[in-house]
């Protein structure tokens, strides 16, 4: 049998395979280049960018939990200018599509960033983070209120002709309602889930472990919630869905595709295994081969319920 076809196309971005690296867990790509062949990854999603450099939260910022981890990085990033100067030159040397994740505090900031990113040829598409739970101002309201989400996505949509992916927060009563709002605002694709808001406590010190008190939960612990939300959303919208949450193996990734995801993102797994994205793509290919499936696209939404 010839090699199975792993390629997918997300809103016009052609990916050699469905495995992307999730924002904030893979730096700007370069950090991992010693450990993983970047040319084997579907797409690289950058650490969330803001207009100006952002310091992030005080430390401690991370804590392991059962089957997962909490982070409250607070969106520390170099800012769009430094991104262009310091990070893009390296990304230019890689043929893998680069998707720029970004966030703002106001609709105007989101639009301005989208416009800036629109002008960077190395950026294949943008992913709007409307869901980061760590920032007190802005951010969170866009991710939990469908009207606010609509307006920010609309503004970004008008500011760029590049594919627009909206990344959804799981900390909502009704994820489908959020998905609809973003689809209505003409998002090209949705990615989910971002982290679940959680907390860890140090009994001895009688203090929260994280300086920020709460943080975002990621890793295999959240996979069942992510899978459920991807399944709900993929059935409800017509635009492609990208599955994220606790993906550690090719099996996990293919489960997300059965649930309706057209592609996936790998986050926490990069910390355990810096070559995780490459390995997961290989495992997917192996599974397809072993099971005589010629094209991974056959599996998208193929869940029988």
């Amino acid at each position, binding site marked *: 049998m010839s090699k199975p076809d792993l390629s997918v196309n997300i809103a016009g971005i052609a990916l050699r395979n469905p495995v992307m690296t999730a924002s904030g867990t893979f730096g700007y790509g370069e950090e991992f280049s010693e*450990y993983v062949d970047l040319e084997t990854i579907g797409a690289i999603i950058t650490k969330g960018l803001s207009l100006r450099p952002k310091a992030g939260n005080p430390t401690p910022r991370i804590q392991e939990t059962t089957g997962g981890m909490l*982070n409250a990085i607070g969106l520390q990033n170099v800012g769009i200018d430094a991104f262009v100067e310091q990070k893009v030159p390296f990304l230019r040397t890689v043929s893998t599509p680069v998707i720029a994740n970004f966030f703002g505090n106001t609709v105007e900031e989101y639009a301005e960033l989208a416009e800036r990113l629109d002008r960077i040829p190395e950026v294949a598409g943008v992913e709007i983070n409307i869901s980061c739970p760590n920032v007190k101002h802005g951010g969170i309201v866009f991710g939990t209120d469908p009207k606010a989400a609509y307006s920010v996505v609309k503004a970004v949509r008008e500011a760029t002709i590049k594919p627009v992916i909206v990344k959804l927060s799981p900390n909502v009563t009704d994820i489908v309602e959020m998905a609809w709002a973003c689809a209505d605002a003409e998002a090209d694709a949705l990615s989910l889930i971002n982290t679940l808001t959680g907390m860890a406590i140090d009994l001895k010190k009688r203090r929260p472990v994280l300086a920020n008190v709460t943080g975002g939960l990621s890793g295999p612990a959240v996979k069942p919630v992510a899978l459920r939300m991807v399944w709900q959303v993929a059935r409800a919208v017509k635009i492609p869905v990208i599955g994220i949450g606790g993906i550690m193996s090719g099996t996990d990734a293919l489960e997300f595709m059965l649930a309706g995801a057209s592609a996936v993102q790998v986050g926490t797994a*990069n910390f355990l295994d810096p070559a995780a994205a490459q390995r997961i793509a290989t495992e997917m290919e192996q599974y397809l081969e072993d099971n005589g499936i010629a094209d991974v696209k056959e599996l998208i939404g193929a869940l029988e319920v």
Partner: protein
Amino acid sequence: MQFRSTIISNQEVSPGYFRMRLTAPPELSGASPGQFIMVRVRDAIDPLLRRPFGIFDVGTIKSEFPGLGSATYFEILYKVVGKGTEALSDYHHGDHVDVIAPLGAGFDLGDPAEEKILVGGGVGIAPLYYLARTLVQRSRVRFFLGGRTRDDILCVTEFERLGVETYVATDDGTLGDRGLVTDVMERHIREDGRPKTLYACGPMPMLKAVADIARRTATPCQVSLEAYMACGMGACLGCVVKGKGHSDDTPDYRCVCKDGPVFTFDQLKWV
């Protein structure tokens, strides 16, 4: 490098402290003192994250059989404090672990002519042994070692065997002087008077004391820090510490894993 490593030995050198020797690819011989490794304790999800350890030593073993060549190894010295280190302590000769190494920026070896003062607290001596072994080839080295009690004082003989003059102090006086080893060290610096470079690794209060002495005596000083880490390669931004210029308005965070773990004391903000 990421590599599958075989455990050669894993011995309890003092109650709760283990010294583990592991195989490595030959390239690891190029690791600098002060660099560290991240080990995946089990191939399972509990514990989930890798655990960071300083490189205690790196070397090669020659095969007893001529023609079979030699093998590179490295060592870590660790204290059992939680589930990751507990799981590590259960490993035996022949078991395997996944290792990423070498990581981070190590110590600057400084001017060979100056005396080198190493200060270690508890398991904080781990990266100092490899440093001492490297430094003694060019410089005079003194080692000041502190701990809570006798059981926390490790590897004195190993340091002495390198020709390093070693001073010990314990909080309870069960070994060496009673009191803080940093006091002993400060006295030495002041009495001796000649230029020196300080290298310190240990608990935060000790590092602060060392940094303070460095400042007061205008001695160049490098410290090796610890921080809770997820990636070890500068990507997650989980491990940051406040740099010299940090304030709420002018934030200045440095990655312990990438910019460090070794910093000169004046790169950091000491509160």
